[in-house]
């Protein structure tokens, strides 16, 4: 019997494909956002609002990730410059997108005709936190009906986020969601994070979200 020292990161294969994805995106000057949240928090709604506000300024592509169905791709297909649906049902990872799935999606997209790529991850606050895709920014959406305890229950996804979008602000009169406590719970782990309040239903706050996106896209292009 002999012992072999290994010390090899098990997620290295995913991380290496993610780096290749990012190199490809950079080559085509595509700025990619990984949008994560629980199911129903408003990922598709935020994507639709973003396209509605920015489609005159940017060519926007979308990658939709779901366990099953093409419902989300059908919703955005008339609005986006291009859309690809990934269904994870028969894949080795079902609960999150992984870099390899995005690598295949990128091959199906006209990258030369896209400025901004919105990647909608599978609705889940746990698994997507573990898999980088090659994105330039990570965004988490939390909606008021979910409750303000999500950063305490799922800290990792919030600790790694570049921005957190609080959606369904129009629900504020009906739910006990302490926005200050929610923000504090995130900032203690992630002091640099940008927190934005929106309602995809009324359009409130979408302007600020789009300004953040445009600023980040510019910062990425100038290599900041």
């Amino acid at each position: 019997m002999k012992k072999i020292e290994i010390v090899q990161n098990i997620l290295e294969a995913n991380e290496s494909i993610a780096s290749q994805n990012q190199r490809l995106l950079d080559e085509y000057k595509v700025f990619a956002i990984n949008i994560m949240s629980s199911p129903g928090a408003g990922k598709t709604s935020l994507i639709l609002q973003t396209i509605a506000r920015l489609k005159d300024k940017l060519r926007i592509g979308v990658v939709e990730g779901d366990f099953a169905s093409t419902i989300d791709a059908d919703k955005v297909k008339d609005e986006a410059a291009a859309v690809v649906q990934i269904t994870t049902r028969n894949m080795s990872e079902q609960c999150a997108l992984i870099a390899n799935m995005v690598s295949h999606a990128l091959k199906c997209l006209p990258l030369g005709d896209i400025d901004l790529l919105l990647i909608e991850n599978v609705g889940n606050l746990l698994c997507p936190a573990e898999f980088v895709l090659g994105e330039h920014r990570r965004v988490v959406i939390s909606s008021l009906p979910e409750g303000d305890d999500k950063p305490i229950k799922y800290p990792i996804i919030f600790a790694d986020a570049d921005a957190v979008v609080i959606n369904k602000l129009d629900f504020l009169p009906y739910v006990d969601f302490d926005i200050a406590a929610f923000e504090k719970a995130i900032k203690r782990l992630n002091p640099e994070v940008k927190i934005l309040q929106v309602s995809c239903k009324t359009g409130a706050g979408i302007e600020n979200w789009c300004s953040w996106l445009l600023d980040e896209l510019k910062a990425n292009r100038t290599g900041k």
Partner: protein
Amino acid sequence: MHELGVTESIVKIALDKAKEAQASRIVKINIVVGELSGFVPDCIEFYFDFVSKDSIAEGAKLHFELAPAEFRCRTCSTIFHSHDSTWTCPECQSQSVEITGGRELYVENMEVE
């Protein structure tokens, strides 16, 4: 469930290293899993039997070492472990902390014949 892909990676790493070492059988694989990582040892074990079947890793024992959650206080730089979810610095009671450990997922070593 996302442990199938991870288990495939573990078996691939183990088989590659066993080949390099010209081993004929993998007896035990030691894996470090962080307490805060989203990976469940039981699920990896469940998939391992099926992923390693008909390879020299078939029948190998998986041993998991749990790496504890570790934090660095952003106020006084104290490194500490926390066994509850309050994650408060034991020195200055600050709640502003950086996660410095507990997210690991790696194959540490293995025993072969």
